[in-house]
């Protein structure tokens, strides 16, 4: 593959597309597929050919607004239809070029207008199973540029300049990580893409892998070139069958086009990628545990140092980045690090993809510039809390994060700002809770999660989370005491400070943040035996004699 050949493919796709008067894009991500958007696509294809329209019906990845699925986007008019069913296909086909079908139209301009799409720029616009579609949208130009015009150190320089930080949650500077692996000595190096999106309530990585898998592969190839690796692994959850199948197709197509394999783009650069399936262990999101899992072992973490950058997979220098991090690489190389650094806030550059779910009107996936306020995300883009309820808290960072109370919504979203208020950016799950959610119960839910997901290797995490769960269950039952609360607080700091890996070190966060901002709810449960949200079932209060007995 040469740059000319790449251009040729892009041009032929553009010419073929230009022949059509209209393009109908049908969302076929997991969300819309569960509402039979595959049947909708078939019906639309049949309807347009029956009506003799010169229209292309395309399968695309996620368009983001899962709440309104199945979604259909008609181009070039940019008409978005929501809740479209197979029965509506003829109506949609008949309306092409004329008045849109009013009852299906989705008019949520503010939902889309405030977003900035870098990672999701192709999602909903290209067919994820066709590499040519990706190439027509500037795909693989960045890899070509890196291989033919840039030295590995120039690539790292651009990434460093961009200010990109790890999107898996830690926020470690990507350029620094890359240069550490590049400097590590070794004849064999590995690149791993962490797609073990274990945070319950987050689905950014799934969506990117389903909607634009080539972007991730291109990012990995550029990384491999920059650090001197020749072999890559993508670790994906087995719970994401659609992502796995799209990724498998994408890898096959990339190989067929000579964009993976030996002598890529007629240079000495070789790179091959394999998929590894996770098997349902949250701890495998931790990098050393993930490496153990790829090696075919139980996913238990190891103490660091040595860091994977110097001694990772099979003891070799290994670069591990998250799916979203890799998805940012191609545009940075294409447009330059300075361009990326111009977006976002002071110390958090670029954009972040969030999965907004829970008690919110527009559930789905959004990509916003860093620094945007939580209020803009929740009330503007997200459309606020539905059914007349009031917002109580926003949970970010999943089981490692915290609950942010409603009165702090004006803070800007960045790695440092979220840590400062006791939560974390995390991988991008954002769960909105209203007055029907009990914060003590939520804390118990997360601790239960960490308790079952603890790998059992270190004691503070294994037994600490179990004890915390017992105490929280007691408080939720109405049988907790003020001493329990004190003990719980003590345990939080012990588990936080003495656990081996990130899972244990961050497990107390949901408890600590609810302590801080919703302390009255704990007191209410313990002293008044009352759950204001009506979630916790209080055990009948025993008489004092019984308690003593």
């Amino acid at each position: 593959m040469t740059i000319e050949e790449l251009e040729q493919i892009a041009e032929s796709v553009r010419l073929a597309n230009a022949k059509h008067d209209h393009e109908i894009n049908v969302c076929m991500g997991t969300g819309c597929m569960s509402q039979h958007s595959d049947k909708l696509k078939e019906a639309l294809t049949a309807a347009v050919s029956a009506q003799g329209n010169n229209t292309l019906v395309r399968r695309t990845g996620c368009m983001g607004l899962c709440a309104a699925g199945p979604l259909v986007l008609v181009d070039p008019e940019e008409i978005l239809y929501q809740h479209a069913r197979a029965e509506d296909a003829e109506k949609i086909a008949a309306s092409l070029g004329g008045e849109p079908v009013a009852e299906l139209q989705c008019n949520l301009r503010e939902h889309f207008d405030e977003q900035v799409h870098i990672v999701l720029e192709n999602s909903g616009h290209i067919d994820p199973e066709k590499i040519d579609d990706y190439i027509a949208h500037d795909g693989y130009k960045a890899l070509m540029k890196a291989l033919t015009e840039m030295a590995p150190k120039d690539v790292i320089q651009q990434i460093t300049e961009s200010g990109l930080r790890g999107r898996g949650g830690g926020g470690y500077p990507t350029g620094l990580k890359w240069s550490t692996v590049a400097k590590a000595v070794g004849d064999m190096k590995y690149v791993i893409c962490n797609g073990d999106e274990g945070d319950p309530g987050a689905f950014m990585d799934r969506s990117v892998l389903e909607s634009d898998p080539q972007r991730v592969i291109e990012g990995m190839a550029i990384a491999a070139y920059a650090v001197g690796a020749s072999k890559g692994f993508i670790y994906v959850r087995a719970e994401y069958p659609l992502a796995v199948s799209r990724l498998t197709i994408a890898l096959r197509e990339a190989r067929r086009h000579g964009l993976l394999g030996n002598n890529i783009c007629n240079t000495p650069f070789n790179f091959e990628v394999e998929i590894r399936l996770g098997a349902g262990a949250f701890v495998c999101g931790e990098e050393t545990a993930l490496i153990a899992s790829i090696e075919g072992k139980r996913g238990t973490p190891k103490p660091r140092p040595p860091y994977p950058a110097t001694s990772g997979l099979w003891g070799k220098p290994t670069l591990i980045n998250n799916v979203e991090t890799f998805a940012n690489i191609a545009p940075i190389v294409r447009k330059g690090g300075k361009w990326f650094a111009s977006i976002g806030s002071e110390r958090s550059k670029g954009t972040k993809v969030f999965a907004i779910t829970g008690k919110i009107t527009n559930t789905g996936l959004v990509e916003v510039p860093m620094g945007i306020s939580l209020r803009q995300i929740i009330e503007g883009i997200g459309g606020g809390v539905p059914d007349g309820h009031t917002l109580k808290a926003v949970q970010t960072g999943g089981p490692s994060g915290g609950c942010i109370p409603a009165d702090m919504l004006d803070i800007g979203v960045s790695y440092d700002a979220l840590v400062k208020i006791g939560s974390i950016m995390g991988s991008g799950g954002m769960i909105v809770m209203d007055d029907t959610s009990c914060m003590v119960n939520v804390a118990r839910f997360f601790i239960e999660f960490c308790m079952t997901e603890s790998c059992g290797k270190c004691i503070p995490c294994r037994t600490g989370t179990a004890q915390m769960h017992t105490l929280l269950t007691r408080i939720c039952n109405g049988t907790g005491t003020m001493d329990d609360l004190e003990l719980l607080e003590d345990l939080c700091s012990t588990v936080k400070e003495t656990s081996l890996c990130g899972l244990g070190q961050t497990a107390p966060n949901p408890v600590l943040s609810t302590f801080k901002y919703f302390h009255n709810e704990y007191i209410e449960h313990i002293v008044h035996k009352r759950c204001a949200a009506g979630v916790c079932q209080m055990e009948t209060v025993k008489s004092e004699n019984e308690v003593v007995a």
Partner: protein
Amino acid sequence: MPVITPPPLPSEDKRWKIVNGTMRKSGFARHALIETLHTVQSSFGFLDDDAIRFVALSLHVPLSQAYGVATFYHYFTLKPPGKHTMTICTGTACYIKGTDKLLASAEKHLCIAEGETTKDGLISLTTARCVGACGRAPVVLTDGELQGQTTGDELIAQLERWRVE
């Protein structure tokens, strides 16, 4: 290097050939353990002792390690599943939308706990830690097919449909 002779297939069952295929693809390397167990589970529905023993022998992995891996990961199951499987997502978004009540009503209706199969072997009830379809919470998987915004009545109706089939 000792010459590796793979053990004979446990039975005539053709599915073992698929399992063997997965191991051959990686040259019977030890690190293919998890991949192979995935193949066993997708072919047979669960991992039994014979399967774990066969895979361990073929890949030259100690039995303890193979068993350790099979029990460490939630995705693997050592018990045969029922004819139908109802999986209820217990991720955060689903939990906030009341999936705990769905689970409780399913448990009550089937008279089994989560992770168990009805005595007649008809229905298994399992939970999943987030299937990533949070936009459609609460989510259940009926025989692997995703259903969003599920209500308690719909859930019971589905269980009843399986009963009368």
